[in-house]
């Protein structure tokens, strides 16, 4: 889809940065969305795979919403908004996060009630919403952000990500979520994001010991 931001270079995922880290996480979220889409197909046919759906919701709540959207809403977006007061794109992204939370709630309620058709509807809605949302971030917002952020700001943002990932959530939680996402990928025949070396590098780039603060240690 051509846009007025096409002249901006795509996110440079060969370099660890405030936006490339989030783009790497997007690939894991897309992996879970593909598994969730397959669950929605089964649910629509009356066969709700409850245990897998619970696992997918745990990853979406913890990894996608708390950790990933937390990094965006609490760290990246404010840094952009500080440079351009009233910055519109982040407001749109925040609103879509809220929409996504409502759909996660709807999936959770349908799952608790055993409502296969309701779960399928909410899951499809969530998959469509998040895929479009990720597309907008990768193709537009992150390209703009990459241009806006200087090296010092980038380093400060990475440091703040580290606090969320390691101090707030703990390495154990972050990697446990990735492992659940991989189990779902295996069950539903979806490719693992981490099988791509560049994505694995981004997912493991920053160490709580702070030795990983700089662009990829090779």
């Amino acid at each position: 889809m051509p846009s007025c931001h096409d002249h901006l270079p795509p996110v440079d995922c060969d370099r660890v940065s405030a936006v490339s880290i989030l783009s790497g996480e997007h690939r894991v979220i897309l992996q879970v969305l593909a598994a969730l889409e397959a669950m929605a197909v089964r649910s629509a046919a009356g066969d709700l795979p409850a245990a897998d759906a619970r696992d997918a919701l745990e990853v979406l709540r913890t990894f996608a919403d708390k950790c990933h959207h937390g990094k965006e809403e609490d760290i990246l977006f404010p840094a952009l908004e500080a440079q351009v007061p009233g910055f519109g794109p982040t407001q749109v992204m925040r609103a879509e996060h809220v929409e996504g939370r409502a759909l996660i709630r709807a999936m959770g309620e349908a799952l608790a009630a055993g409502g296969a058709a309701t779960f399928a509807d909410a899951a499809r809605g969530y998959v469509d919403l998040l895929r479009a949302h990720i597309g907008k971030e990768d193709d537009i917002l992150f390209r703009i952000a990459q241009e806006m952020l200087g090296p010092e700001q980038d380093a400060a943002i990475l440091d703040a990500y580290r606090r969320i990932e390691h101090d707030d959530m703990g390495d154990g939680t972050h990697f446990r979520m990735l492992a659940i996402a991989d189990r779902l990928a295996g069950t539903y025949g979806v490719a693992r994001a981490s099988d791509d070396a560049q994505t694995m590098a981004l997912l493991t780039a920053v160490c709580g010991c702070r030795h990983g603060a700089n662009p990829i240690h090779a």
Partner: protein
Amino acid sequence: MTTTASPVWRDQLAPLRYLAAKVARVHGGSHPAMATLAEVVATLADSQAGDHAAHAALGRRLGELTGGFRPWSGACASVHQLFLGLAAVAAALPAAGAEQA
């Protein structure tokens, strides 16, 4: 991909695949064995169920590459966490010929 319930060690190892990759990336320059360790962890995590001899051999490699699961002096929390996790995996790995799954 297995169709039966996976053994405990496999569930323990799945998140450690990422932690090992991180330790290799961040500390592999000063501790080259960590790059090999990440490869061994990934191979074991993705190994076929029932390959008892290979599992036992990879389990021994984990012990060798980590110096008996003892972090080097001054190692960071990630290294401690990785070695602790791998020690538990190695202990849960069946001896060759004795695996259930």
